[in-house]
């Protein structure tokens, strides 16, 4: 039987911990494991912070955030509503305007965490309220669906550079085909790799991980791995996560290949 709880906090950052505690209680009541409880608390913190800093745009006790929790059997549904102007987070991290601080977009990383930590996230602007609904199940039973692997095309360039072109979504499950083509290239001692990202529409930490693993192996082999032609939205993920400091990133495959030979790794 679902149990519903409600809490209203004023639009002040120092009231967010109350929302966090409230959600922790509801998540524990739902029987979520400790990790899932922690993630719920963090998702609520991140969202409420975004609502105050970017939705309302100020701290003002006259603004409010309403939180509803429904605790079920090893699952919780958390709905957060506010009255700030409509802001659709699904536009993040790609289209948030220009408030870059050290390449880290305010709100972007928080939203990234919410998507990574929650099992389902749904936004709508309904009846004058931004309404975010998140569902978290106990991570102990958590089973991920397995979408089809993204198709991957490889080709050779002059100077021993190999180009790998994954397509579609590079996430935990969608990047398996990509990982195995990276591994095959490296196993064949093709250490100078350019990943043509032009066909990639989305990258998660799973996809980033595959790239970092391959980058490390390429460096060990005395080569390097460069990225080419990132869509703005994908590039933003690299900036938010700080990966733009790690990889050589270029506008085109040719420019990336040229950069590989200028800086052929540190090994």
């Amino acid at each position, binding site marked *: 039987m679902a149990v519903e709880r409600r809490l209203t906090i004023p639009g002040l*950052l*120092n009231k*967010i*911990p109350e929302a966090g505690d409230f959600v922790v209680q509801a998540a524990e009541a739902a029987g979520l494991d400790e*990790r899932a409880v*922690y993630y719920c*608390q*963090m998702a609520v*913190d*991140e969202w409420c*912070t975004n609502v*105050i*800093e970017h939705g309302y745009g100020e701290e003002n006790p006259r603004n409010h955030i309403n939180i509803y929790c429904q605790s079920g059997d090893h699952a919780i549904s958390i709905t957060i509503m506010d009255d700030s102007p409509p802001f659709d987070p699904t536009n993040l991290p790609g289209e948030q305007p220009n408030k870059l*601080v*050290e*390449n*880290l977009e305010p709100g972007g*990383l*928080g939203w*990234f*965490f919410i998507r*990574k*930590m929650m099992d389902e996230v749904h936004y709508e602007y309904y009846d004058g309220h931004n309404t975010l609904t998140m569902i978290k199940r106990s991570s102990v039973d958590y089973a991920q669906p397995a979408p089809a692997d993204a198709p991957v095309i490889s080709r050779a360039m002059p100077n021993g550079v190999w180009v790998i072109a994954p397509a579609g979504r590079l996430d935990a499950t969608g990047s398996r085909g990509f990982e195995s083509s990276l591994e095959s290239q490296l196993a064949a001692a093709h250490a100078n790799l350019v990943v043509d990202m032009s066909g990639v529409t989305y990258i998660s*930490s799973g996809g*980033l*991980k595959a790239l*970092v693993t391959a980058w490390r192996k390429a460096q060990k082999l005395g080569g390097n791995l460069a990225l080419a032609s990132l869509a703005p939205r994908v590039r933003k993920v690299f900036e*938010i*996560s*700080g*990966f733009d*400091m*790690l990889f050589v990133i270029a506008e085109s495959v040719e420019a990336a290949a040229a950069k590989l030979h200028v800086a052929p790794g540190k090994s």
Partner: protein
Amino acid sequence: MEITVSEMHRVTLIELSGRVDSTNADDLGDALNAQIDAGRNHLVMDLSRLEYISSAGLRELVSALKKVKANNGDLRLATPSERVREVLTLAGLDAIFQVFPTQVEAVGSF
């Protein structure tokens, strides 16, 4: 949140404890900037008593990392809790920060 700074022979050790979120991330940033402005660019952050850090706090860490790297320094992390470590990994930050299992190893790495 509590920040304790100890000046060591070759590095500055910063112990961070409690919770870092949007209410106090600025204070963390100020504390890190104070070290960097004073010319201390070899920083170790001991996270063993850090219970929670949100994206607001992580942004300050990344921002500080970028600054010390620009000065040929580094900001290295020691002993994050399992949850904090997961959060670093989720954000991909485990690839740009060196993370050490003990404070001694982090300090000794410089």
